[in-house]
């Protein structure tokens, strides 16, 4: 390695340090670096201001929207109060002033995404979104641009809590959770039938609200992820960055890869698999803390290459947490694992298959298996062996009646007069021995 190369490597490292200090809120002075590394002072003074500029604007991209706050008027909507904050932006409760007065949810996206493009993509999807009419899907009414050049979406306001919180607070048993999951699936299936993929299904986008006293899950943000996503060819730096701001926990490998592979409904199937996993075990397939700490490359590698543990394995290895997870499901910690073993494990793992070719092809196929499981029928998630089918059969009709059936068929078999082959029984035995 020559001197120039060594100098460039060192300079790149210094630049990294300078950028990193900006990210953690420090205001490092470039003179500090120029004095310490006087041989490279010229390059430092030349290049570091540009780094400061990029990092400074990085801060404004990731910091929350400050210009929109309660009281602000955005077109015909008046912001009332902030009700949430997510990776993509801030959600407000807002009052629509005309043509009808109503309360809506208004989501202001973070700066840094190409507003014109986001709105153009939303407009392209608008007709399809309008075709969606389902009690369990929150409607998206409108989209536009705020005074500070950020895009916003107006949606039906849903008063509810995340589906996972609802389940835990009400201590729903595993079968009750599966029933709830089936309701969610129906909403997703409705959208898929209209050609709309959600792309960002996760508990915080599935709220449970009381409808005449009955809990009803409602999927929010349909059509929004699509508007935020650039096709590969026109993807800019900022959207690429912003895209990864969303939680990778529920993201299918093909989404995490950002390989430009066309996404289809199977990415929603994957996310539903993660949801199912979480409803059953109280944890996501990937470790939340680990993904949070991992770098982008490492994170993609984990999602792409690592096989998550089966739900039953996860339950067996969670240690102390098992007590609270079981309590929230009204289950015995010693037996909760048995509920999932085999079939439910297979169903969840098939939905989570990294290769989408081997995943359930549709949400319906996944739901059908969950329904089969609940009805004690054989699931399709794995090629069933004869032993497995027999066991399911026994469980379905009960041990006593299956014993009865078995003895009937056995006796029928025994009573049938056996044809004696030419050469007598001994010949048959010899024939068999030769095989």
């Amino acid at each position, binding site marked *: 390695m020559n001197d120039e190369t060594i100098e*460039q490597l060192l300079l*790149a490292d210094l630049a990294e340090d300078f*950028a990193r200090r900006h990210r953690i809120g420090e205001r490092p002075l470039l003179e500090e670096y120029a004095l310490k590394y006087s041989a490279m002072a010229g390059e430092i003074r030349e290049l570091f*201001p540009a780094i400061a*500029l990029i990092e*400074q604007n990085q801060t404004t991209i990731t910091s929350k929207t400050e210009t929109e706050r309660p009281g602000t008027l955005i077109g015909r909507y008046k912001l009332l109060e902030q009700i949430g904050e997510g990776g993509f932006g801030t959600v407000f409760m807002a009052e629509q002033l005309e043509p009808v007065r109503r309360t809506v949810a208004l989501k202001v996206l973070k700066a840094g995404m190409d507003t014109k493009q986001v709105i153009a993509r939303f407009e392209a999807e608008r007709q399809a979104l309008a075709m969606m009419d389902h009690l369990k899907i929150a409607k998206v009414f409108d989209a536009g641009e705020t005074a500070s050049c950020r895009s916003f979406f107006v949606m039906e306001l849903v008063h509810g809590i995340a589906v996972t919180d609802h389940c835990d607070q009400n201590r729903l048993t595993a079968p009750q959770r599966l029933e709830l999951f089936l309701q969610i699936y129906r909403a997703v299936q409705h959208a898929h039938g209209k050609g709309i993929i959600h792309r960002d299904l996760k508990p915080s986008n599935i709220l449970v609200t009381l409808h005449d006293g009955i809990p009803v899950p409602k999927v929010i943000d349909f059509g929004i992820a699509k508007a935020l996503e650039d096709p590969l060819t026109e993807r800019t*730096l900022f959207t690429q*960055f912003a895209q990864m701001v969303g939680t990778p926990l529920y993201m299918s490998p093909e989404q995490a890869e950002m390989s430009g592979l066309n996404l289809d409904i199977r990415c929603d199937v994957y996310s539903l698999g993660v949801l199912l996993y979480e409803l059953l075990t109280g944890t996501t397939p990937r470790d939340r803390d680990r993904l949070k700490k991992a770098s982008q490359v490492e994170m993609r590698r984990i999602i792409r290459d690592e096989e998550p543990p089966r739900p039953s394995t996860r339950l067996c290895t969670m240690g102390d947490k098992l007590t609270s997870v079981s309590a929230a499901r009204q289950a015995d910690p010693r037996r909760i694992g048995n509920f999932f073993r085999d079939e439910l494990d297979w169903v969840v793992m098939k939905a989570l298959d990294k290769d989408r070719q081997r995943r359930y092809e549709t949400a319906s196929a996944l739901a059908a298996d969950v329904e089969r499981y609940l009805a004690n029928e054989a699931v399709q998630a794995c090629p069933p062996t004869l032993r497995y089918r027999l066991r399911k059969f026994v469980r379905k009709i009960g041990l006593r009646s299956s014993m009865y059936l078995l003895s009937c068929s056995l006796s029928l078999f025994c009573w049938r007069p056996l044809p004696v082959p030419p050469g007598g029984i001994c010949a048959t035995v010899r024939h068999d021995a030769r095989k």
Partner: protein
Amino acid sequence: MSPPGPGLSDATTYAIVEQPACTATRASEAAIQDEIKLRLQQALEGMDSVDREVLALRHFEQLTSAETAEVLQIEERAAAKRYLRALKRLKDILEAMPGGLLALQP
């Protein structure tokens, strides 16, 4: 100490980016920030995709030198070289913009 190199002077950059929130009204500060960001975005979009990619990896995806090299599937020294070259080009573009960054000073 030698004087700062020509073009984008340190003093100017810091005057802009270190504008204390208490002295500027929020609205004007936001407007300046938006303007800077717009300029930066324009500068980045006008760049060659190879340069843009390495800057994105280093600053927006916040990858380290080693990770950048891994993603680009090149050696670390080549990645460092590419990064510094892109940074230099970005600086040149920002300088060449009408009024440079000086125009943005309140």
